[in-house]
């Protein structure tokens, strides 16, 4: 089995795992849930007040998603840069030996 085919099959499973909940739990909110975390803690200890605030919070959901997208883009950019680089190096050295 070719590397590409093998990885595409694996990727298929990953996509299925991500898409399945959307159908399975149709009515769920799929919240980012940071707010709910505090609720659960308040439930356990109603007197608790967070003693520290974030230095800076993204002013809106749009800007937050921009930053998350940026994080993913930077990360995947480097991951694929490396994978492409090593593939190129590999095929180059193979040609050298031939």
């Amino acid at each position, binding site marked *: *089995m070719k*590397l590409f085919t*093998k*990885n595409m099959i*694996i*990727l298929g*499973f*990953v996509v299925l*795992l*991500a898409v*399945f*909940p*959307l159908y*399975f*739990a149709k*009515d*769920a*909110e*799929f*919240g*980012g*849930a*940071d707010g*709910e*975390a*505090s609720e*659960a*803690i308040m439930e*356990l*200890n109603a007197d*608790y007040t*967070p*003693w*520290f*605030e*974030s*230095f*800076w*919070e*993204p002013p809106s959901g749009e800007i*937050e998603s921009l*930053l*998350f*997208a940026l*994080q*993913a883009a*930077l*990360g*995947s*950019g*480097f*991951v694929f840069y*490396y*994978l492409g*680089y*090593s*593939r190129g*190096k*590999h095929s180059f050295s193979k040609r050298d030996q031939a």
Partner: protein
Amino acid sequence: MIELSRRLSERSCFNLMEIGKLKRTGLFLVYVFAVYMVFPDNVYAMHIMEGFLPFNWAAFWWIAMVPFVIAGVRSIRKTVKLHPNLKMLLGMAGAFAFVLSALKIPSVTGSCSHPTGVGLGTMLFGPTAMTVLGMIVLIFQALLLAHGGITTLGANTFSMGVVGPLVAYGIYKGLKKLGAPQWLSIFMAATLGNLMTYVTTSIQLGLAFPAATGGIMASILKFMGIFAFTQVPLAISEGLLTVMVFNILNAYSKRELQVLTAFTGKAISTLKGGVKA
């Protein structure tokens, strides 16, 4: 179809993989229904937010984190000094954690959480190296995204950068020793490392917020149920993605992989030095 199955049977290794997947699918369905019965409500699973650990616990986890960070810096320095050409691979391991931490993926519990991506680097560079890289990712998210926090950085680094990698490392080594195929060792290591990260988060929250009835244990179990269940499909996703990357590395970066003692397990005496010192 017949041709396909013949091709599959030619590779016994792949057959094993298929069987494993079938078993996993079955288990997953059982799990899904269990979850739906127990937690029909919207739940959450992520890092501990800014200010949401009492001062003493925040300080405790900061202190607990420090030795691992120091060991990690030393380990990275040593790797880079011994093999300067591995710098890019190290960067890639960090970038992998960076991108996976940004992907909030829906789970069957009806909320979203994200993978951690530290398993890959752990198997390449050893667990403490990933403490450092994981901490960098967490700092970025705490400062720019108000996700996690600086006061809770110690606790979050401890779960994602210490416990997760240590578990992944132990599982990887153990399964390899037992003679499991490499893809399975990698998959289980990344998956369980991810899962244990969130189990640790639940323990940290449980310790800090004991339930009025049942105390610490009841509280831990409550958080654990929520966190661990949401995380299961994501942990599996992380395991699969990690196997994907290793497939590519095996094909194109064989030479780099052979140098990495943490990965091959050869030369154990230098391995210990490489990881700890």
